[in-house]
């Protein structure tokens, strides 16, 4: 055996030795991890047991069976899901003889309704304010600056109470409300004419409605490049046809003794909450947008100027597309906090999830179970928003494309 052979053998032994040591390490490592997880699960279980037995000793029952009870209380607005015919859930207005679970769904619906509208409107308003802060016009620049400063530095709750009691409830009462082409602005709510489906089961009407939907989806997502205008035109034409054929009609609100019937309406509570949240979030979004524009290399502006682009085209086609790629994650944060802020609706009587939870907890006495449902609902809403923002971010920033 030569020296070389010996060292080779030793090398192999060393190699095996190393391999087994790695394996041992890995097993130990995994065992520790498994152990830690097991202990955490056990601790959580013990905690849950302690809470449950503690509650039982105080005579508090912990059970979710109350969800199937009849609600017995009214909710001022909102749609819900209820078990309808043939096991398909019905989507209808909430009424007191539905279950407590339906009341929770109404709350989630109302929260989501305000959140979605607020996300859209605050993005638009916030971007306008943010761009406005960099305007060359002194008045616009300073106006935007002071709006943002004022709104950012006062508490949202106070703004909400201001919007409700000092603005929305100062609208005229129903009897003397302004009527403008079917629009009624009163302290009982803002009523606008609504489209209502009168096409029934007519195949032509349904086909036209489907076409509108398809072209609308096409216009938004634009799967075949350059087809957006065609899609929009198709949607408009189909809609005109549907209207002429009597598939849909305009339903005008009619004022009666206390409120108005017909049309569609925004309640004063929702209007106030929406205003407060939109203006508040918009001012934060404006700051994000302004910061991102400031961070953009100056050469972008100069390059656009040297191409002879006007300021409007520079902002719309050069600056904002680059800005949106950068600010989307911060927008996501703002959207999530905005959604959670809708819980302030209780201050003005808006029946959002947290408000309805309060009523349920009081009428049924199951506040612990209720708050678990409420927290889980907000968590899920937040997850949905962050997933959507992540998805939009991926679309705007494809991997491998430099910013």
């Amino acid at each position, binding site marked *: 055996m030569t020296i070389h052979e010996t060292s080779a053998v030793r090398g192999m032994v060393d190699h095996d030795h190393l391999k087994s040591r790695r394996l041992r390490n890995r097993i130990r490592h995994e065992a520790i991890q498994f152990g830690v997880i097991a202990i955490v699960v056990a601790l959580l279980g013990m905690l849950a047991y302690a809470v449950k037995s503690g509650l039982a000793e105080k005579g508090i029952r912990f059970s979710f069976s109350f969800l199937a009870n009849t609600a017995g209380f*009214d909710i001022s607005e909102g749609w819900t899901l209820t078990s309808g015919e043939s096991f398909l859930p019905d989507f209808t207005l909430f009424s007191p003889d539905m279950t407590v679970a339906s009341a929770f769904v109404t709350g989630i619906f109302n929260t989501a309704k305000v959140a979605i509208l607020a996300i859209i409107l605050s993005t638009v308003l916030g971007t306008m304010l943010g761009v406005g802060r960099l305007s060359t016009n002194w008045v616009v620049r300073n106006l935007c600056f002071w709006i943002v400063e004022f709104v950012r530095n006062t508490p949202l709750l106070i703004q909400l109470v201001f919007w409700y009691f000092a603005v929305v409830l100062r609208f005229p009462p129903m009897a003397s409300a302004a009527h403008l082409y079917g629009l009624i602005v009163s302290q009982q709510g803002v009523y606008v004419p609504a489209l209502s489906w009168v096409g029934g089961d007519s195949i032509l009407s349904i086909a036209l409605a489907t076409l509108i939907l398809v072209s609308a989806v096409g216009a938004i997502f634009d799967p075949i490049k350059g087809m957006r205008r065609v899609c929009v035109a198709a949607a408009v034409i189909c809609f005109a046809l549907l209207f002429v054929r009597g598939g849909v009609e305009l339903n005008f609100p009619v004022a009666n003794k206390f409120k108005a019937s017909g049309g569609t309406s925004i309640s004063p509570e929702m209007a106030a909450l929406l205003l407060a949240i939109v203006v508040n979030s918009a001012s934060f979004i404006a700051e994000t947008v302004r910061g991102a524009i400031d961070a953009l290399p100056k050469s972008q502006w100069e390059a656009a100027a040297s191409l002879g682009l006007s300021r409007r085209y520079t902002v719309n086609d050069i600056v904002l597309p680059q800005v949106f790629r950068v600010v989307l994650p911060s927008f996501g944060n703002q959207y999530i906090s905005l959604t959670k802020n809708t819980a302030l609706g209780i201050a003005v009587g808006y029946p959002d999830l947290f408000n309805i939870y309060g009523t349920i907890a009081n009428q049924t006495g199951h506040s612990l179970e209720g708050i678990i449902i409420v927290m889980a609902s907000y968590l899920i809403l937040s997850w949905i928003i962050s997933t959507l923002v992540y998805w939009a971010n991926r679309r705007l920033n494809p991997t491998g494309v430099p910013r």
Partner: protein
Amino acid sequence: MNLLKILTAGVFATVAFSAAQASASVLDTVKQRDVLNCGTDNTAPGFGYLNTTTGQMEGLDVDFCKAVAAGVLGDASKVKFVTVTDKSRFDAVLTGQVDVVFAHTTIKPARESSIAIDFLPINFYDGTGLMVKADAGIKEFGDLDGATICTTQGSATETVLTAAFKARGWKDSKVLTYENLEKLFSALNSGRCNAMSTDKSALAAWAGNAPAPTDYLILPDTLDKSPFGGFVIANDSKWRNALRWIEYGLFQAEESDISQANLAEKLKSEDPFVQKFLGVDGGYGKDFGLSDDFIAQAIKAVGNYGEVYDRNLGPKTKMYLDRKGTPNALWTQGGAIYSPLWN
């Protein structure tokens, strides 16, 4: 592994603590603390109201808190008022934040069966009423078909209104709920609410405290009865019984004509019942875990039930609610204020 030990210890401590907490009566806790935490409203004139000119809490419920503090601790000033809302009042008792709540709470079965609380005897008989702006042209409940009626969140009125709509087959009427009476009253004034609905006593109080009380009209209808009672945590007989008999003591004192004014004189009375009742000779307190003169202390602090009523809701107050002919009169005068037998 240290972290693990701490966590385990924490869980065991939690278990042990909750077990220990369950065994002690609130009565012992209060005596040990030497202060009574009493939950009251502070926006309900006549019941629990923070008087902004004197900075003092006043009202029927507030006086019951003082009577309990005097009866249990021998000093009516040993009470800490904790503001509770219609919504938070039950949780305040369940979590031990307060020892007892007197906050114009309607006694109804669902509250005792599904919330772990026990009610004390009825200390005020009220009814659910409605108030409108006088210029609205509404004269009775029947005029309100299709209206928006507002109330406070978590109150019994929420379900009473819903049931009233259903009974009349009204489809367009809506119930809008606010956090507290203050917001509710603002909403009525602004015109958002066509009517404000809560207990009649509270309606009278809010109209009475307004700059122009004649601007408001309380409708003659009473939608449902609304008996008020304080409440404590469930399954604590020692504490509940002590409070029940302090309350009955105030009722009995009025019946036996013992008042704040003549207490000194009654303490010298030769009547064996009065002597025992006031703890001069023997007494009822020992076995409840109270001192024998607990009723004398409570009367010294707030007077008998009639005096408490007159101070907060009587003719000299802004919200004056006549006692005569209502269940709030003493049973000897045809009312329902009645104490069980003491002798």
